[in-house]
């Protein structure tokens, strides 16, 4: 046994310290998961269970929160309810038990759809423009390249409220206030810094020689970009797209100030899900659960690229 082998075995953590680390991490992971687990559980509670004291760990699950999230209801007298034909669906039955009738769908589905449209729309443009710019920054000689890249990054340092004042005035002039198009343009601009920086990192990793070989074979620069670089960068582009999507999905300040109805996204809407006598917590929890679930799934998909995404490409693995 050489001295080096022995030294390495000393540097390696001992089984005991490993086990101790595992236990501490496990405890932290479980404790930090309580808030989310509790919200998901609350979405399956009845309104009275949701505000019970002491908090109920064991309860009979109910879909009332989800029904309330998606419907608008009014309270009726028992006499009126008795005069109605029997409920046709399970959710109508659930609502009737609370002496209410469904008057129509709530606005939640529309707000959720806005989040999807604005999220995917802005992601598409941010990634499309970002890929072009990143390719140019990676491959061409551009005067003041470093300054331009820093300028692009610095747009992310503006406090959103500071940008919101003039953007609000500008959108009012252009008639873009409370429109999906306006929000798509705005989120595209906000996401461009992230998309350019991340994609430049990914494209930098593709050897130049591939395109040069293709161009020697008679491809034009554009063809080489399309047929050689894009397929190579596909995984990076996908990861970038998910980061842009998550940002647009989560954004709140601009949505709060620039949308009120037609183009409002889910984040400013969720806190306003009011039931009788204050917030309808199971419905809020149901909306929260439906809103956060896609992000949790994407986080798992992204886990290899997370570090890169959150540091704008400054750190890789």
């Amino acid at each position, binding site marked *: 046994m050489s001295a080096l082998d022995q030294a390495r075995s000393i540097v390696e953590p001992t089984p005991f310290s490993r086990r101790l680390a595992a236990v501490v991490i496990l405890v932290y992971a479980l404790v930090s*998961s309580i808030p989310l687990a509790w919200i998901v559980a609350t979405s399956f509670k009845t309104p009275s269970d949701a505000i019970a004291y002491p908090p109920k760990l064991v309860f009979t699950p109910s879909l009332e929160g989800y029904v309330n999230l998606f419907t608008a209801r009014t309270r009726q007298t028992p006499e009126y309810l008795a005069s109605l034909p029997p409920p046709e669906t399970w959710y109508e039955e659930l609502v009737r038990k609370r002496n209410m009738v469904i008057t129509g769908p709530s606005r939640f589905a529309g707000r959720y759809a806005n989040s999807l449209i604005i999220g995917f729309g802005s992601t598409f443009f941010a990634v499309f*423009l970002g890929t*072009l710019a990143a390719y140019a920054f990676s491959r061409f000689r551009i005067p003041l390249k470093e300054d331009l890249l820093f300028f692009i990054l610095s747009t992310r340092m503006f*406090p959103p409220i500071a940008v919101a004042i003039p953007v609000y005035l500008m959108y009012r002039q252009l008639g873009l206030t409370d429109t999906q198009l306006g929000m798509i343009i705005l989120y595209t601009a906000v996401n461009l810094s992230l998309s350019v920086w991340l994609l430049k990192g990914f494209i930098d990793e593709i050897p130049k020689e591939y395109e040069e070989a293709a161009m020697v074979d008679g491809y034009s620069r554009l063809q080489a970009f399309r047929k050689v670089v894009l397929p190579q960068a596909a995984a990076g582009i996908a990861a970038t797209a998910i980061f842009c999507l998550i940002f647009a999905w989560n954004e*709140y300040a601009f949505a709060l100030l620039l949308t009120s109805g037609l183009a409002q996204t889910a984040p400013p809407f969720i806190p306003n899900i009011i039931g009788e006598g204050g917030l309808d917590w199971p419905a809020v929890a149901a909306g929260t659960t439906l809103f956060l679930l896609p992000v949790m799934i994407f986080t798992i998909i992204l886990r290899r690229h997370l570090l890169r995404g959150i540091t704008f490409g400054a750190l890789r693995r």
Partner: protein
Amino acid sequence: MAWLFVAPTLFLLLAINIFPLLWNIYLSFTNYKANAPNRPLRWLGLRNYERLLSNEDIWASMQVTARFVFWSILLQVVLGFALAWLLNRRFRGHGFWTTVIVVPMMLSPAVVGVFWTYLFQPQAGIFNYIVNFFYDFGDFTMIGDPDLAMWAIVLVDTWMWTPFVMLICLAGLRAIPEYLYEAAEVDGASSWRQFWTITVPLVLPFLMLAVLFRGIENFKMFDMVVELTSGGPGSATELASIYLKREAFEKWRTGFSAALAVVLFVTVFGVANIYVKLLNRVKER
């Protein structure tokens, strides 16, 4: 050719970021009110800035912001580094638990704020219940008490962003070449000494990068705190961004708030620039 690729991006950033910024600077010298656009516009020169620097409410909100930034980042650095250090033991399943821990930082801050108001409820809230389970403090309300509200937002921010610092520290720890420890071991350095002479100095640039990101983000903090406390009770958690939003979109003092926006932006930009210089010096060492 190169310009063709870059032009659309630059154009959009000029239109949506730089043009508004310039407009904002222009407005900061006027008495413009966005809810009365037809009122005659008056040029005030530096009057808005004078008023701003002598305004006690703004100083108070700056102080609140500074406290929030300081405590939340301190907690995140300590916790995040500790977690990374433990995760770096590479026990079985560490990848899975990393993913579990990381989830909160990807969520919408506003929605996080909303559901924490529920967790913080004095009666039905699980937070108070758990705290009182270990030590009976009796009735208290995290977001209704002026003394506790600051800690409520610090706590939620720490819950959300500790994983961010952790991930960056973990990258730093993994980048330390093993031979350094081996050499130290051969020289007979204690593990305490190795920690302070190898681990800490080599992770420091990473840690500083994490602090830079968190510092900028928390200085701008708006969404989570608006939903959690909306700046209250009173103005106990009224961060600079929240104060700015009230001036701009509730009191409609557009010119004045434009000046405040400029001051905030210059502050972030200036501090970030000095900090980056410092970071580079540490990196070179």
